[in-house]
């Protein structure tokens, strides 16, 4: 790829990430830079020993060399894949249930209390059982991620479905919409703003749980990488990994959720 093309791509990427978004102003840059500067100074002037907190500059250096390493990237990809699988699973189970609960009162009264009961339990308390049944691996991680993502998707979609004005169902009936079109052309768009916030929450919850599981059960993802490096004293690599996760999380947040939400903002 030519330099020009790369520049154009970078511009269009940052453009789509920040355009029309509340981050479109750059006020946040100064405090962030100040934070990094304080961090750098703390270690450099010996306020904090470097074996507890490496300097920011050394972390950056390790970060830039790490992201050129295939194993490092594969680790991130591994965690990300588990996360996406978990979310897809959560979404495909939660959506029909939430839709049914939102539209059928009896179903809601039967199912929602049960779901709330499970939601009240701390997700991670089931981890030892899952490890016992499926072994310490991807299956347990995906199931846990989907459990974490299930609740926000379920409750937001249920709420969204309940909030659809009755009149809109009359509109679909009067124009003789079939069941499928009613769902795809009325219900789905109508609940989408709720659904998007549910997905965003689910995504955040799932990241946390994935990292926790990787640390606890040694699944070969990025959480496990952080754990191993911090334990063996290479804090720079640990911090570099955290930085990488943050960047992935932000990128997905802006590119995926950002574009969904800007579509909804247009009309909602």
């Amino acid at each position, binding site marked *: 790829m030519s330099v020009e093309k790369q520049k154009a791509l970078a511009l269009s990427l940052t453009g789509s990430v920040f355009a029309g978004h509340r981050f479109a102003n750059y006020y946040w840059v100064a405090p962030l830079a100040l934070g990094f500067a304080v961090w750098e100074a703390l270690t450099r002037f010996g306020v904090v020993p470097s074996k507890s907190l490496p300097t920011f500059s050394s972390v950056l250096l390790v970060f830039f060399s790490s992201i050129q390493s295939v194993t490092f990237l594969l680790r991130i990809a591994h965690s990300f894949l588990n996360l996406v699988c978990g979310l897809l699973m959560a979404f495909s189970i939660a959506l029909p249930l939430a839709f049914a609960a939102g539209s059928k009162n009896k179903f809601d009264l039967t199912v929602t209390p049960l779901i709330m009961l499970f939601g009240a339990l701390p997700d991670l308390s089931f981890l030892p059982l899952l490890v016992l049944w499926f072994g310490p691996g991807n299956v347990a991680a995906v199931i846990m991620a989907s459990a974490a993502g299930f609740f926000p998707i379920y409750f937001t979609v249920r709420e969204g479905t309940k909030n659809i*004005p009755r*009149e*809109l169902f*009359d*509109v679909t*009936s*009067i*124009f*003789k*919409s079939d069941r499928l*079109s009613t769902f795809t*052309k*009325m219900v789905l*768009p*109508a609940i*989408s703003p709720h659904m998007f916030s549910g997905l965003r929450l689910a995504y955040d919850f799932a990241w946390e749980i994935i990292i926790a599981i990787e640390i606890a059960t040694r699944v070969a993802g990025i959480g496990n990488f952080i754990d191993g490096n911090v334990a063996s004293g290479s804090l720079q690599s640990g911090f570099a990994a955290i930085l990488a996760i943050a960047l992935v999380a932000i990128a997905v947040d802006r590119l995926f959720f950002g574009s969904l939400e800007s579509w*909804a903002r*247009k*009309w*909602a």
Partner: protein
Amino acid sequence: MGKEVGLMENHVELDNVSKFYDAEQKLHALQEVSFGIGLGEFVSIVGPSGCGKSTLLKIIAGLDRPTSGEVRFNGGTVQGPHGKISMVFQAFGLFPWRNVLENVEYGLEMRKVSKKERRNLAEQYLEMVGLAGYEHMYPKQLSGGMRQRVGIARALAVEPEVVLMDEAFSAIDEVTAEVLREEVTDIHRQTGKTFVLVTHNLSEAIELADKVVVLSSRPAKVKKVMPVSLERPRDRTHSLFIHMHKDILHLLKEELENTLIRHKLQGIRELQSIHDIEAQGSTAKPKQPLITT
């Protein structure tokens, strides 16, 4: 349309339409409602609030089924939503995620009309309601009056024979509503379609209609059918207009008073029965013991 009601062929006919809201037949909404709506006629339906006017309109639309009796359209029983019966909604019923054009195209889209034809028809009806140039705006960007214009264009775009309007002007400010009413009168004259309007606004009912159907309080029965013989455009200060308004108001007040008396009587009866139960309770034993051992 100074035609005689009796001479008109009925386009829509309500034949002993009764409706209970519940299976136990306790919540009686409509009781043997019968009247005819002529081809090209504009009929207003008024009644005390909560009497079941909107339910009646929904039954005509095929959105709701009568418990007994039937609605006939062009001689055939209405079994469900009919392609030739369209509707304008009180809260406009627009899809906020669709722009003006896409909202008007919706009904045509459901009928699998080709994209090009859809666009043409939608543009044509947007023009008719004075919204040419607003195609790409979203409902949230429009005023209430403009939103209802979209609702009217959408109802007309499917080229119905009957347009039902459920409190179509109630959620709009008075001046805008007045302008819109004049435009609907024009559309009615131009297209010759049959219009049925449910409203609680008596002046609006008289201003628009060829005849006004006055319903009683729940269960709603037809209290009176009043033809409006005034020339259009109608002058609200015309003595005949004022007389009609007064007559209808009188009928509805009467209904309201009847309801109040009925409620009072019912209250007294309920008090009486509570009294009876209490009197019994002191002597008689409960029929079923609460805990059996």
